[in-house]
C-alpha cells in the first residue's frame, strides 16, 4: 500500500514553509506552527441518489508568536505553492509582530518548550472517486437511504522554534447514513481505512433488519419516568455532553462547569462509572496544538469520582494546576467509558418494561448547575414490555441530570461497547471519537 501523494506533498510543503518562518524569528521571539490539511471527497445521498458531490483540498497553517511577554496568533489558508506560501506566512509573521507591539502583556502565557517529536502515517485503501457511487448505492438498491460518504487523507502537524516536530497523517472513510420506511428510520455507520464491499453489505443488512423491526405498531408513550436502556451510541451522545465545559478545568475555575459539584466532592456518580481519555483507541494523535503530548491514558472518572479534569497548560499557568496534555478547549478527544457486566443477550430481559433508545438527538444543558440535560429520542427507539419489543415510539423529549442518570439511577453497563468515530465535518473532517457501552437506567425522565 503506498502513501497518498497528497500526504507526501503536504509534508514537503509544511517543512519548507515552517523552515522559512522559524528561520525568520528575531531576538527573544518564539513560535509554534500548526498544520491542518485534508483531501476529501464528499458525496451526499438522499433517497439513495446523489444530492451533491464535492472534492475539497485544503491546507491551513497557524502561527502563534510570543515575544516580550505577549502572545498573538494568526492562521491562513495555504495555496500549496512554496514560494507564495512562504511569502504569505512571513507577512503574517510581520503582522503578528505589529500586534505584539499594541497588545497588553499576557499574564497566562505558556513559554514554548520542546515537547519531543512524533511521526505517524497510516495508509488506507479507499474507493476511487469515480467508483464511489456504484459501490455505495448498489447494495442499497431499493432502500430509501440518506447520508454522507467522506473519504481521503487527513493531516495534522506541529513544529515550534524549540525544535519540536509532530506529524500525523491518516487515510480514512466513513459512510454515515440512515434508512427510512416513511417516517420510521434507523441509523447506521460504516467507517474505516479499507473499504470492504462485503462489510458494507453486512452493515446495510443489519440496518435493514432493524428497520424491519420498525414495522410493528407505533407506540405513544406518555411523559413520565421509565426504566430505559440506552444503546452504546445513545450513551456516546449523553456522555458527549461532558465535552461541553463539564470536564474543563478552566470552566470549573470560571464557575461554568456543570461538574462543579463533582469536582468539589459535593456529589458523585455511580461506582460503575470509569471514564478515561484513551489515545490507545487510535482515533486521534496524542499531541495538541502546542505540541504537548498527553499520556496514553488519562483517567478522568474512576468509580464515579473525579480523578482529574482536562487541564491545558494555559489553565495550569493561570490557576496553579498541573497540566495533563489537554487541548485548548479542554474537551475529551478520545473518551473511553469502561464496560460493565450486562451481556447484550440479557438487555431486553433486564429492561423488562420500558424504553429501548438507540440514539439521542440535539442535547443541551437545561440546568447547568445540576448537570441536567435535555434532548430527544431519535431513530430506532422502542417500547418494550416484559422483555419483548412491542413497537417503535413516537419521538419523546427527555430532561435528566447526569448526576442521576449516571449516578444512583444507573443500574448496569453492558459488556459490549461500540466505537463512535467522529464524523464531524464542520470546517474540515474531524479526528477523534469515543467508545461506550450500553447503559440500563432506572426512572429516566421523559417530559413531552
Amino acid at each position: 500500500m503506498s502513501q497518498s501523494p497528497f500526504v507526501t506533498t503536504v509534508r514537503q510543503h509544511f517543512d519548507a514553509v515552517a523552515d522559512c518562518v522559524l528561520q525568520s524569528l528575531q531576538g527573544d521571539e518564539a513560535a509554534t506552527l500548526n498544520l491542518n490539511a485534508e483531501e476529501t471527497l464528499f458525496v451526499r445521498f438522499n433517497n439513495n441518489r446523489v444530492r451533491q458531490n464535492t472534492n475539497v483540498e485544503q491546507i491551513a497553517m497557524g502561527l502563534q508568536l510570543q515575544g516580550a511577554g505577549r502572545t498573538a496568533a494568526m492562521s491562513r489558508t495555504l495555496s500549496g505553492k512554496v514560494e507564495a506560501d512562504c511569502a504569505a506566512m512571513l507577512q503574517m509573521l510581520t503582522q503578528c509582530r505589529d500586534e505584539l507591539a499594541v497588545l497588553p502583556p499576557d499574564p497566562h502565557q505558556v513559554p514554548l518548550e520542546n515537547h519531543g517529536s512524533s511521526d505517524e502515517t497510516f495508509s488506507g485503501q479507499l474507493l476511487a472517486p469515480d467508483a464511489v457511487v456504484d459501490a455505495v448505492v448498489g447494495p442499497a438498491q431499493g432502500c430509501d437511504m440518506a447520508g454522507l460518504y467522506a473519504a481521503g487523507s487527513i493531516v495534522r502537524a506541529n513544529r515550534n522554534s524549540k525544535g519540536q516536530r509532530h506529524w500525523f497523517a491518516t487515510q480514512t472513510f466513513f459512510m454515515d447514513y440512515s434508512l427510512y420506511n416513511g417516517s420510521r428510520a434507523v441509523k447506521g455507520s460504516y467507517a474505516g481505512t479499507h473499504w470492504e464491499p462485503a462489510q458494507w453489505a453486512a452493515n446495510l443488512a443489519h440496518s435493514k433488519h432493524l428497520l424491519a423491526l420498525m414495522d410493528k405498531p407505533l407506540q405513544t408513550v406518555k411523559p413520565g419516568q421509565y426504566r430505559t436502556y440506552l444503546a452504546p451510541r445513545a450513551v456516546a451522545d449523553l456522555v458527549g455532553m461532558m465535552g461541553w465545559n463539564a470536564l474543563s478545568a478552566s470552566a470549573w475555575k470560571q464557575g461554568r462547569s456543570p461538574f462543579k459539584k463533582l469536582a468539589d466532592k459535593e456529589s458523585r456518580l455511580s461506582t460503575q462509572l470509569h471514564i478515561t481519555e484513551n489515545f490507545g483507541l487510535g482515533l486521534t494523535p496524542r499531541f495538541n496544538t502546542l505540541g504537548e503530548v498527553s499520556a496514553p491514558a488519562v483517567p478522568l472518572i474512576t468509580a464515579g469520582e473525579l480523578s482529574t479534569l482536562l487541564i491545558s497548560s494555559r489553565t495550569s499557568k493561570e490557576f496553579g494546576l498541573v497540566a495533563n496534555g489537554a487541548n485548548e478547549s479542554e474537551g475529551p478527544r478520545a473518551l473511553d467509558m469502561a464496560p460493565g457486566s450486562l451481556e447484550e443477550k440479557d438487555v431486553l430481559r433486564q429492561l423488562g418494561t420500558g424504553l429501548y433508545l438507540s440514539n439521542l438527538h440535539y442535547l443541551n444543558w437545561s440546568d447547568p448547575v445540576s448537570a441536567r440535560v435535555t434532548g430527544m429520542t431519535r431513530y430506532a427507539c422502542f417500547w418494550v414490555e416484559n422483555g419483548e419489543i412491542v413497537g417503535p415510539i413516537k419521538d419523546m423529549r427527555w430532561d435528566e441530570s447526569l448526576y442521576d442518570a449516571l449516578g444512583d439511577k444507573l443500574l448496569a453497563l453492558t459488556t459490549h461497547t461500540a466505537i463512535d468515530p467522529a464524523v464531524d465535518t464542520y470546517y474540515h473532517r474531524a479526528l477523534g471519537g469515543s467508545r461506550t457501552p450500553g447503559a440500563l437506567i432506572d426512572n429516566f425522565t421523559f417530559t413531552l
Partner: protein
Amino acid sequence: MPHFDPQPALRHALQAAQWAGLRYSRESTQTRAVRNDAPEKNDTTLEEGAMCEVLIDGHFGYAATADLSNAGLQRAFDQAITTTRATAGHKVHPFTDAHRAAVQGVYQSPAQKPLATTPLALITDCLLAASKAMAIGDKVVNRSAHAAVIQTHIDYYSTNGTHTTQRFDMVDITVAATAAEGMQSQTRTWTHTGQFGGEVFDVAAFAQQGLRVATEALELLAAPNCPSGTMDLILMPDQMMLQIHESIGHPLELDRILGDERNYAGWSFVQPTDFGTLRYGSPLMHVTFDPTKQNAMASYAFDDGGSPARREFLIEGGVLKRGLGSVESQERTGLPGVANFRSSSWNRAPIDRMANVNLEPGTSSLDDMIASVEDGILMSTNRSWSIDDYRNKFQFGCEHGRLIKNGKLAGVVRNPNYRGVTVDFWNRLGAVGKDEATYGTLFCGKGEPSQVIRVGHSSPACLFRGVEVFGGQS
C-alpha cells in the same frame, strides 16, 4: 478584485461541462478576547479559495481549491468534472443552466466607519472597559468580553455571464459576567451581532453593558428558581430570535422538507401540501425572509447561486405561504421559495439556509402586554436550546426571568425554561410588540458536509398564552 483571472479556467471547464461557475471567497476574522482584565485571545484567521462548479448531464458538482493559479483552478474543474460525470447517473433531479441566474451586481455592508481602519487597540480598550466595569464584587468570578471583526469578499462568475461582487463587514460582540457562590452559578450576557463597521466600538457603551450584565448576574444569584406551571409568557427579542430560528426558520427550509437533511439536522413536520393552507400561528403572526434588512447579519444582494435576493412573506396572518428554498429546491418541489442558496465558505457547496427571518412588528407596547398578564413570566436571552428532528417538540431556556403578577413586573427568577410544540405554541401568540430589535449569530449548523452560517432575526417582544414553564433543580 481577486488577484487572478477566472475566465481561462471557466473556458477550460466548458470543454466538458454544459455550464461552469466559480465562487471566490476571501475572509479575514480578527478575534479579540479578554477575561478578568487580562488578554485571553488575539487571533486572526484568513481563509481564501475558490469553489469550482460544473453542470454535467443535468447534475451540479463541485471541487474546492486554494490554488488560485490557472493550473490550480483547471485541476479543480477537472476533479469536479470527473466526479460529477460518475455521479450524474444517480442524480436526485435533472437541472439545467436556467437554474443559475445570469446576473451582474454589487453589494456592500452599510458600515459607517470601515472595519479595515478600526484600530485593534480600540477594540481591546472596549473589551477591557467592559471587563473592568463588571468588577462589582467578589461574587462576580468571571468577567469576559469577546469581539470578532469579520471582513468577507465574495466574487461569483459563470459561463452564462454572471459576475457579482459582495463585500461584508460584520461584528460579533459578547460580554458575559458569571456570578457564583457555593455550588450556585449564574451567567448574564450582552451580545451585539450584525453587519456593522467600527462605529460599534464605543468604550463607554461597553462599560455600560458590562456593568448591567454583572449587576443582573448578581441579582440572578440571589433570586429564587423559576416556578413551574402553565402560565402566560412574554419573550423578549433576544429570546424571540431563537424561537423564530428553531421553530420557523428550520422547519420551512425546503431541503429539509425534501429529506436532504434527514441523516443529520433532521426532517420537518411541514408537508409540501401545507403551503397556502397550514395555520402555523395566530392571525397576529407575519414572518418575512428579508435579506435587505439594514445591519442584519445575513443581508446580501445575491445568494451563492446568483439569485437576486428579495424580501418575501413566509407566513401572513398566521398562514404558511412560502418556503425557505433555493431555485433547486423550488424546482424539485414546485413550491415558491427565496434566494437562500448559501455556503459557509469557499470549501463548501451551497445549500438552503435561512438568512434573515423576521417576525414583523405588531401594535402592542411592552407595558400593554405586561398589563394584560395576571400570572406569568417575562424571559430574556437564550441560554439553552433543543428541538426534535421534525422541529416539533422544543425546550428552550433563558438567562433571566421576571415574574408578572396582576399586570405588573415582580421579582427576578433564575433558570427559566419553557417547552412546547411548534404549531400549538405559535397559535398561542396573543400579542406582538411594536418595537423590534435585531439579533444574529455566526453559528447555525447544518448540512453534509457540515457548515456553520450567519443568520439574523428581528422581532419585537411577544406574548404567548398558557405555556408550560419550569425552573432548575438547584
